[in-house]
């Protein structure tokens, strides 16, 4: 079966002062139909850059991005336009994702209208159905974004992304701007929608507990490269990359008994700059296990058990 998304040796470099910023370097992964892949990492690791490239918002410096078998790298405007109907995006901040002067009915209906999928009464019915699907009422269609709370606005953004029944939903930190009590509502909604539509999802987040909750498989990025890609249960039960272990140890669990008994794996140091990444394994400057080979040779992603790990020592 064709993967919904297949990324091969993706590179995204940007001009910087002097050396180019290597935001994404040699990243490869795929997402099967109906599968949700979590892409996790800290700020500057390149996860959002990858997300933007999967919907054609950024052109790859090198490598390939295929959505449902169609190549996006170097694609012409017509191909990009066609593929964007199949790959839709939900951004972090629902406030800036919606036009304040457009009713939410118009916003949700716009993709259908632009693509000539529906108009008139049929469009209104489709919008009403989409609103109900995300837990809002059809009569909300005539209201403006400011009349909704943050959580409701994220529901509106999700409804708009679902309008064209995309094969791939790309969610970039969809709950990070929301309050805790609202976050749960949106996570429940996303899990429900995945089950109902068998949609593939690329779920970008810095929050490992959230990713564990909604994803089937998880890819961990560090400074532009993949550190580890593994099925969810394997990754959380047996993290193989030292960075994955450190990241998991750093998640503060909302339970003092668990949290305070946790062994600390303090990562010393700061995240280096992607303009001047460390030689060899990019994690070696902070890795408690680093040896000479780590400083000199770039570790390739290789299969270890159920996981793919880019670590000489795994």
């Amino acid at each position, binding site marked *: 079966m064709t993967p919904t998304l297949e990324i091969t040796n993706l590179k995204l470099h940007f001009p910087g002062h002097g050396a180019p910023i290597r935001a994404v370097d040699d990243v490869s992964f795929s997402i099967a139909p109906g599968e949700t892949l979590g892409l996790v990492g800290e700020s500057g690791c390149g996860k959002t850059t990858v997300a933007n490239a999967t919907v054609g918002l950024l052109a790859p410096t090198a490598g390939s991005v295929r959505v449902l078998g169609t190549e996006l790298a170097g694609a012409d405007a017509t191909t990009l336009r066609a593929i964007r109907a199949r790959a839709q995006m939900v951004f972090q901040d629902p406030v800036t994702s919606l036009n304040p002067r457009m009713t939410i009915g118009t916003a949700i209906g716009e993709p259908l209208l632009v693509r000539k999928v529906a108009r008139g009464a049929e469009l209104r019915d489709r919008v009403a159905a989409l609103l109900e699907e995300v837990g809002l009422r059809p009569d909300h269609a005539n209201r403006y974004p400011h009349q909704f709370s943050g959580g409701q606005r994220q529901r509106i953004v999700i409804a708009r992304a679902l309008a064209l029944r995309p094969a791939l939903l790309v969610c970039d930190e969809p709950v990070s701007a929301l309050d805790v009590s609202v976050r749960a509502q949106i996570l429940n909604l996303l899990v429900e929608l995945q089950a109902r539509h068998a949609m593939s999802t690329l779920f970008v987040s810095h929050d490992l*507990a959230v990713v564990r909750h909604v994803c089937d498989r998880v890819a961990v990025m560090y400074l532009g490269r993949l550190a580890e890609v593994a099925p969810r249960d394997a990754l959380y039960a047996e993290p193989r990359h030292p960075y994955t272990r450190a990241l998991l140890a750093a998640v503060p669990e909302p339970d003092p008994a668990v949290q305070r008994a946790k062994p*600390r794996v303090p990562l010393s140091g700061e995240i280096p700059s992607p303009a001047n990444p460390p030689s060899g394994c990019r994690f070696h400057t902070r890795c408690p296990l680093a040896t000479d080979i780590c400083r000199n040779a770039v570790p390739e992603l290789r299969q270890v058990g159920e996981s793919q790990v880019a670590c000489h020592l795994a």
Partner: protein
Amino acid sequence: MSNAQPALVVENLSLAIGPAVVVDNIGFEVAPGEVLALVGESGCGKSLTAQAIMRLLPPAIRQQAGRIRLGAEDITALPERRMQAIRGRRLSMIFQEPQAALDPLTSIGSQIAEALRQPLAEARPAVRRMLEEVGISDPDRRIAQRPFELSGGMCQRVMIACALISRPAVLIADEPTTALDVTIQAQILDLLRRLAIERQTAVVLITHDMGVVADIADRVCVMYAGRIAESGPAADIFAAPLHPYTALLLASIPRLSDVPKSALAVIEGRVPQPSEYGPGCRFANRCPRVMPRCTAETPKLEARAAGHQVACFAA
């Protein structure tokens, strides 16, 4: 810890914007070396409370009632000039965005020395020691650098150094790790806890993150819509939350131990706006255990177990 004289006492504090009481009759105390968390969602009044303690409230906010004591001294009505002598010396604050809180044009060494009211030339040894204490390597080089040359995590260490160099009795930390990555957050939380104990600083930690609370708080005040819903030792609040809001909030957080894709507990509706506050419990319209009484009267914060208080008729 409860035997020592509290480093900070807040009593019956009420703050209003126009007619709306946005912080309603809250009180707590913090002992030396203790970390008290004020936890709640946006708009619950936790940051306003911090600003009221610092006496740095925005002009539109009026303190209607309440007393604030720093050690034995009542600072509620001190003139601004006296407050200026207290801020940064006996009562310090750190903020969410370290880069925004530091002066971009001044070296970090001078900024830390300024907290001692000394020129850097004089204070250099003390500044150097403080930088080491907050875990900044190569302090001799860093002293001359400006904030843009440092990462967010390092800037937060610098802000902590500014706040603690004068050995204040009380540190107010307003979302000190919210802008930081998790691995850096873990470092900063470890640092705050170590310094609080070593220096016997009382810390008021303001956060929305129950994970952060679980990590370093000794005691917790859970705030909702300007009131304290529940307060008590961190271990008790997490193990046996009494207020329905606390219980739901805890159940709504995805954990590394729960069943993936299982439904998370949801708090229906949204936090009321100050203009919508009625005479009863402010959580009543979202509460699964609401009774007629809840919308008519305000529940008082009452002790249910040692040090564990709750404001709920159903609890």
